[in-house]
């Protein structure tokens, strides 16, 4: 296709897309308009029936808890698949794998900054996971923050990541336990209350750390699963780079 024809195609497509976008945007409720009934209803359900103050958590883990289960399993399968592919490639290089090679490591400033940040980042991840039902955040966001700690460890010095004490096995266990815990909570709801994902724990007082019943358990499960999945993929990538 000539450049001229491509430009023409782009301009035509951009005009149509722009028109449709504008049409859609104009139909959106104005920010000053009163919230739609669904917004008030989901807030009311989250606070009064599930005792969580973060409505988004109430929607994600109660009203559409089954979708979240599906999403979690998608991430689980994707991370496992990526790890299997990367590992198959790594085996090809196993003969060339000699750990005696000394890595000069990262420059001093970077090493100090990264090492100093690992602890606070881990605490931040735990905070985001544990308060997902009270404030914005939750298992997914906290899980990725946990994985960020691994990147910091790597930035502090490559040699740390290739230590003989390899965390890959424990990462896999964390990921699997997180995924299994969500399924088990869903099944427990089916057994105890007759409906999958139905709450079967004490709801507590809305706004307290221990409240929301199964939602808090699900947040921790998702946090473990996401932290495990992202860490697993990153570790496999890093191993490949370091080992070669």
């Amino acid at each position, binding site marked *: 296709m000539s450049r001229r024809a491509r430009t023409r195609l782009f301009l035509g497509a951009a005009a149509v897309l722009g028109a449709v976008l504008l049409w859609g945007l104009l139909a959106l409720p104005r920010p000053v308009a009163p919230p739609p009934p669904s917004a008030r209803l989901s807030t009311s359900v989250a606070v009064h029936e599930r005792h969580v103050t973060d409505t988004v958590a109430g929607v994600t883990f109660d009203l559409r808890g089954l979708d979240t289960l599906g999403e979690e399993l998608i991430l689980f399968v994707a991370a496992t698949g990526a790890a299997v592919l990367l590992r198959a490639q790594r085996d090809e290089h196993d003969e060339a794998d000699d750990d005696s090679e000394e890595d000069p490591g990262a420059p001093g400033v970077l090493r100090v900054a990264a090492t100093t940040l690992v602890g606070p980042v881990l605490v931040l991840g735990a905070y985001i996971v544990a308060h997902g039902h009270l404030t914005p955040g939750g298992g997914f*966001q906290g899980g990725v*923050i946990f994985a960020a700690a691994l990147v910091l460890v790597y930035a502090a010095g490559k040699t740390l990541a290739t230590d003989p004490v390899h965390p890959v096995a424990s990462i896999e266990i964390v990921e699997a336990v997180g995924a299994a815990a969500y399924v088990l909570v869903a099944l427990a709801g089916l057994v105890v209350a007759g409906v999958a994902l139905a709450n079967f724990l004490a709801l507590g007082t809305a706004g307290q750390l221990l409240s929301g019943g199964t939602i808090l358990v699900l947040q921790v499960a998702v946090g473990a699963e996401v932290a495990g999945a992202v860490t697993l993929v990153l570790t496999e990538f*890093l191993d490949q780079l370091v080992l070669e």
Partner: protein
Amino acid sequence: MTVLQLAALAVVAIAGTVTVFVREPLRQTVVAGFLGLALAILFLVFGAPDVALSQIVVATVAVPVMVLLALAKLREEER
């Protein structure tokens, strides 16, 4: 619409356009990180802190690191 919201929209538009026009993958990763941060601020000023938090962790932690690792891997293979 407040000034803050308009400013956030403008920054996202600029960052998005720049991301498309930067052709070098390494630089594009950094610029795309800025776009992700701008999007997070946009979500925040439009009242969606949960989405903003997800956007921050995905756009500034997960995606850049994975893209950088993939780039490093490709370079090693070229050598």
